């Protein structure tokens, strides 16, 4: 398993378009993807899971991937969270 912590830089947090983009990107990987905030962990391929976290800009999250393409998945997904829009 690979994981990386990142501070969310998305202007309006992980909502709306960025949330859908994150989920679509996660679904392209075969690895199991999780997103963790504090003591809550959700399925990174589920839009409802992502929205349930209510991730605002400046929140520290941990992206976890477990599977064959875990390195690439963590890299791609953290870069979405760290981008400004």
């Amino acid at each position, binding site marked *: 398993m690979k994981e990386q912590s990142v501070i969310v830089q998305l202007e309006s947090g992980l*909502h709306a378009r960025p949330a859908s983009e994150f989920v679509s990107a996660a679904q392209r990987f075969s690895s199991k993807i999780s997103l963790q905030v504090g003591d809550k962990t959700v399925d990174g391929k589920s*839009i*409802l899971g992502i929205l349930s976290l*209510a991730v605002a800009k400046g929140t520290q999250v941990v992206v976890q991937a477990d599977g064959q393409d875990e390195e690439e998945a963590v890299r791609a997904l953290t870069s979405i969270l760290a981008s400004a829009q």
Partner: protein
Amino acid sequence: MLDSQHVLFHVTTDSQEDTIRKVVALAADTGRIKDISAVVQAVLDREQEGTTGFGKGIAIPHGKSDQVKEPTLLFARLANPVDWNSLDGNPVDTLFVILVPADAATEHLKILSKLARKLMHDDFVQQIKSIASTEALVQYVNAELQ
């Protein structure tokens, strides 16, 4: 949180915009918003950013506008499903609509996050689609969103 005067059953509608307009009009009737068109536009703009049709026939359209006086949660069940460009491609027949004032920073995100958490559970989905009376629905939803 959900008030019985903000529940609509059997809404007849022919489009996403028409659906949003009918629910927003209810919020105008109960004095929660001022200009209907401005609020409808805010909700439509949000849908443009990405659909709130999260699957299972449920959508959570929401909008922020200075025409909204106080945060309001509404519920609508449609007489006929309408296309919502949903993530799973299915039309929508059940909606939670969240309207918040322009200066409400994270209020709607909190409600949205609570709803999202509940909608992951199929029994919640089944209940909100099947409970027949307004009072029972309001009681159920408010207990679940506690």
